[in-house]
C-alpha cells in the first residue's frame, strides 16, 4: 500500500519480542533522523547515537578482541575476535594475540557488518555481540571489517575494503591452520554486509583465492522494479521501500539505478558467474523482510549458474532477528551457520 511513511507499527509489534521491537524501532527512528532528503547524512549525530564498545583483550566468555589496521599505509580498521589464547597471564601479551588459536583446522570468518552501507561500524555494540557469538559457535577467528560507508564513500569503496581485508588475512601466517597450513576463510555479512560478502567472493573467485563458504544473513539486494514482497511488506516491519531507495542512491554511483550490478547481481547488467569457482553459499532469508524476493532471486541466480546454495527461509522472522538471542529464529539460524562452517572448514 502507498504511504511508506505511514505509522503502521501494528504488525511489527506482534512479530517480535518487546525488547527486540524497542531495539529495532529505536534504530529506525534514529536512522530517520540521520537520512536527509537531499541525500546527505548526519554523520556526526550517527556516530553520537551509535552504541559502541571498545575492543577487549581480557577474555570475556572465552573471547577476546583487538583492533588492527589492515596494511601499514591504509586507514582500514578491523576488529579481530578470537578464542582467548591459552596462556596463564590474565591479559594476553601482544605476541599471544597473533598465535593461531589451534593447530587443527579452524575457520576464519571475515565479517561485514550491516547498516545499509551507511550505518554502524565494526565496534558497534550489536555487531560486537554477534562476532563474539561466531567465535564461540565455531571456534573461529572473526575479522570484522570497518569498511568505508556511504554516502561519503560510494561504490566500490566497501568492496575494495572487503577485498583488502581478505587479501590481508590470506597473508597472515597465524590464520592458517591444519597440516596443509591452509587459510580456511568464510565471508559473512548481514544486510549490506551480505552484499559485500557476495562481491568480495566474486573477486576472490576471479583471483584464485579459495573461499570455503559465504554466509549471507538477510543480504541487501535490489533492483529497479518493485517486487511483490516489497509492495506487500512496505512499511510493515520496520523497513520501507523509500528508505531502501535512499540507501541505494547513497551507495551506487551518481546516475546509476538499482539495476546496477552492485545492487542487482543477477539483473540485466550483471556479469555471468557461470564457470567461475565461486564458493558455496548459506543464505538466510527472513519471511517478513521486504527485500526477500531479491534475496530469493539471488539464490536462484547462483543455482542457475551452477553454484551450491543452501537456503534457510525463516517465515516469521523480521530483519534484525539475529541481534538479540531471544527467539527460535536466532538459535536455529546460529545452528545452521555453525553446521555450515563445520561442514566446510575441512
Amino acid at each position, binding site marked *: 500500500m*502507498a*504511504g*511508506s*511513511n505511514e*505509522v*503502521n*507499527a*501494528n*504488525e511489527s*509489534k*506482534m512479530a517480535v519480542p*518487546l*525488547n527486540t*521491537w*524497542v*531495539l529495532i*524501532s*529505536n534504530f*529506525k*527512528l*534514529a536512522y*530517520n*533522523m540521520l537520512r*536527509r*532528503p537531499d541525500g546527505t547524512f*548526519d554523520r556526526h*549525530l550517527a556516530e*553520537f*547515537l551509535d*552504541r*559502541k*564498545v571498545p575492543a*577487549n583483550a581480557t577474555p*570475556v*566468555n*572465552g573471547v577476546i578482541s583487538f583492533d588492527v589496521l589492515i596494511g601499514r599505509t591504509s586507514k582500514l580498521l578491523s576488529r579481530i575476535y578470537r*578464542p*582467548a589464547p*591459552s596462556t596463564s597471564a590474565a591479559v594476553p601479551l601482544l605476541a599471544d594475540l597473533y598465535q593461531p*588459536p*589451534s*593447530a*587443527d583446522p*579452524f575457520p576464519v570468518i571475515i565479517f561485514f557488518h550491516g547498516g545499509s552501507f551507511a550505518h554502524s561500524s565494526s565496534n*558497534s*555494540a*550489536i555487531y560486537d*555481540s554477534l562476532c*563474539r*557469538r561466531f567465535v*564461540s*559457535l565455531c*571456534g573461529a577467528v572473526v575479522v570484522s571489517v570497518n569498511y568505508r560507508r556511504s554516502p561519503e564513500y560510494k561504490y566500490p569503496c566497501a568492496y575494495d575494503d572487503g577485498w583488502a581485508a581478505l587479501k590481508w588475512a590470506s597473508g597472515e601466517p597465524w590464520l592458517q591452520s591444519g597440516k596443509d597450513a591452509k587459510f580456511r576463510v568464510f565471508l559473512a555479512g548481514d544486510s549490506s554486509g551480505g552484499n559485500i560478502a557476495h562481491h568480495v567472493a566474486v573477486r576472490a573467485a576471479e583471483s584464485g583465492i579459495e573461499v570455503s563458504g559465504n554466509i549471507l544473513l538477510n543480504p541487501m539486494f535490489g533492483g529497479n522494479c518493485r517486487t511483490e514482497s516489497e509492495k506487500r511488506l512496505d512499511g510493515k516491519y520496520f523497513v520501507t521501500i*523509500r528508505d531502501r531507495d535512499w540507501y541505494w542512491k547513497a551507495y551506487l554511483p551518481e546516475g546509476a539505478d538499482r539495476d546496477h550490478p552492485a545492487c542487482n547481481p543477477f539483473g540485466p547488467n550483471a556479469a555471468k558467474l557461470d564457470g567461475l569457482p565461486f564458493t558455496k553459499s548459506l543464505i538466510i532469508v527472513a519471511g517478513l523482510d521486504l527485500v526477500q524476493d531479491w534475496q530469493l532471486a539471488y539464490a536462484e541466480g547462483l543455482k542457475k549458474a551452477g553454484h551450491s546454495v543452501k537456503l534457510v527461509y525463516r517465515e516469521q522472522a523480521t530483519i534484525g532477528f539475529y*541481534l*538479540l*538471542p*531471544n527467539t527460535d529464529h536466532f*538459535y536455529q539460524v546460529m545452528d545452521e551457520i*555453525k553446521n555450515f562452517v563445520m561442514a566446510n572448514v575441512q
Partner: protein
Amino acid sequence: MSSSFRSDMGTDPYDSVGDDRWIIASASDRGSSRGEIDSLLHGAGYRVRSTDLRHVAIGLEQLESTMVGHQCVASSAEAIHYNPSDLTAWVDSMLSELAPDPHLLRHPQSTATANTWADPTQQRPSLHRLENHHQHRNVPAVSLQSMDEEEDAAIRLVHLLVSCADSVQRGDSEMAGSLLDQTRLALARVNTGFGIGKVAGYFVDALCRRLYPPPPSATGGGGSAANLEILYHHFYEACPYIKFAHFTANQAILEAFQGHDRVHVVDFNLMHGLQWPALIQALALRPGGPPLLRLTGIGAPSPDGRDALREVGLRLAELARSVQVRFAFRGVAATRLEHVRPWMFQVAPGEAVAVNTVLQLHRLLGDRASPEGSDAAAAEPIDTVLEWIVGLKPKIVTVVEQEADHNKPSFLDRFTEALFYYSTMFDSLEGGRVGGSHRGGQQQQQTVVAAVAEAYLQREMCNIVCFEGAARVERHEPLARWRDRLGRAGLRAVHLGSNAFKQASMLLTLFSGEGYCVEEVAGCLTLGWHSRPLISASAWRADDADDASPPRDHQTLVLQDHSSSITSGSNNVVDGDDHLHQHSVMRSHMGSSDRINDTGSGSSCSRV
C-alpha cells in the same frame, strides 16, 4: 578442534558471567525481573529497565508519528541529545522536544493491563457515524455485519471514555483508574491508527495524565515556542483551517484599509507570519498604490538569544521591499497576551488600525461562573484586552476561533465536547488528505504533514483535558458567545460578504478534499467538515471608529493565494531611506510589573 577454548555443544555459550560491561544473556534469561536492566538490550548498548520497556515502546511510537517530515527531521537534528544509552530518557526528551506534551506519555504507574501491542484488523469506524452525520466517504466498503461490530466497539469505547471522565469529575480516582484499564482493553479492539481509535487513544492518555500527573520535569512544561511553530506550520499545511482564517481575515482587512494611506496591523500571534505575504502583495496591487504598512507582531519570547520575531519581520520586510510597499515591523515579545499593553504598538494618529486575532482570544478567558455563563462576574483578562482593542479605534478587528464550547464549567461536558470536536477534526485531516488533489498528489508527503498536524491538535486536546486555572488556555467558545462578548465590549459586526465566501470556496476546491464546507452565518463564515463547523471567522469594528474612510467599496481585490512556504532566507537588512523596517523588540515580564527592558537591538523606530 582445539581444546584451548570452550566449544559449543548445543548449549548457549554465554552465561551471565560477571564481567560488568558485558552482561550477555543466557538462553534461560527470558527477561529480567522487574526493575532490572533488560540484559539483552544491555548487550546492544542500551540500559532500559524491563519495567520501562513498554513505556519506551509507546514513546518510540509517538515519536515516530511526530517525527516525520522535513522540518521535523531538521529540528530533531538540532535537538541536543544526551546519553542515548538511557533509552527511556532519550525517548522522553525527544518527545518533549518534538512532541507537544509530555502528558501524552503514559505514566509508569498506570501500566495497562491490556496488551497495547494489539493486532487490529478492523476497518475504521468514524465517530461521525455515531452522531448520525454523513457516512464518511472514505470508509471502504465492508460487510454490514462487520461494520456493526466495529460500531459497537466504538460506541462502547466512547461510553467508557465518558464514564471515565465522569468519575474523574466526581473525584473518584479508583473508579476512574479501573475504567481507564477497561478503556484500554476496548481500545485494543479498534484500530488505533485512525478514526475513533486514534482520537480515543489520545483522550485516554490525557485522562491518565489528569489522574496521575507526572512530577514537574526538568524540561518544564510543554515544548518550546520554536517547536510549536513547527507543529503549527504542519497544521497550516495539512488542512485548510488556518489558510481559510488568513484568507478571510485578509480580505476584511484589505477592504477596511481602502482609502487609507497609512495602515497598521496588529497581529496577536505572529508565528512565521504566514498570513502577511498575501496581504502585502494585495496592497501592492491595489489601485492608487500601496499604503505605508506597519505590522506589529506579538509572539512568545525566543530562548537562547534568538529573536524569532525579528527574523520574521526581516523576511516580511524583504518581501515588501520587493513589491515596493513601504513597510515597518515591530515585534512585541510576551509570554501571555494579558501582559501586552497598547502603548507598545505606538499607534500613530491617523493610522488605520487592524487588529488580527487568529485562535488567540480564547486564551484570555477564565472559568465561567455558571452553566448559563452570565459573564457579569469578575473582570477577566478578556475584558481588559477588548477594552484596549476598542480604545485603539480599529477599522477592523478580525477574529478567528474554534467553533466549539470547550470552556463549559463541567469537566465532563468539556471532555465530551472535545471528544467529538477533535474526532471530526482528525477525520477531516484524514479525509481531506486522501481526497484532495494537493500539489500534484504527493501522497506520502501529505501523510507526513498530516501526522505532525495531529500532534498540533493533540496539544490543544491535552490542554483542555488535563489542565485547570491559568494553565488551561484552550478555552474555546462558540461564535454565538463571542458575538455577545464582542458586542458588549463595543464592537459591531462587519459582515463578510459573498466575495469572501466565494474566495473561501474556491480555495477549498483548489486545495482540499471534498467534505469541507463553508457556511455563512449572520455575516460570519465558518469552515467545517461534513456540516459540522469547526472554525469561525468574523470581522468587527469599533462602534465609534472615526468614519473618515470612504464608504465601503464592494469591488473585490482578489488576494492571490501566496505560497504557504516561508523560505528561511537570509536575514538581509536592506538599508534605504525610503524603506523603514527598523525594528525594536519590547519584552514584557511575567507578573505585575510594567517595566520593560529594551533588548538593545540598537535601532529605534522612526516614522514617516
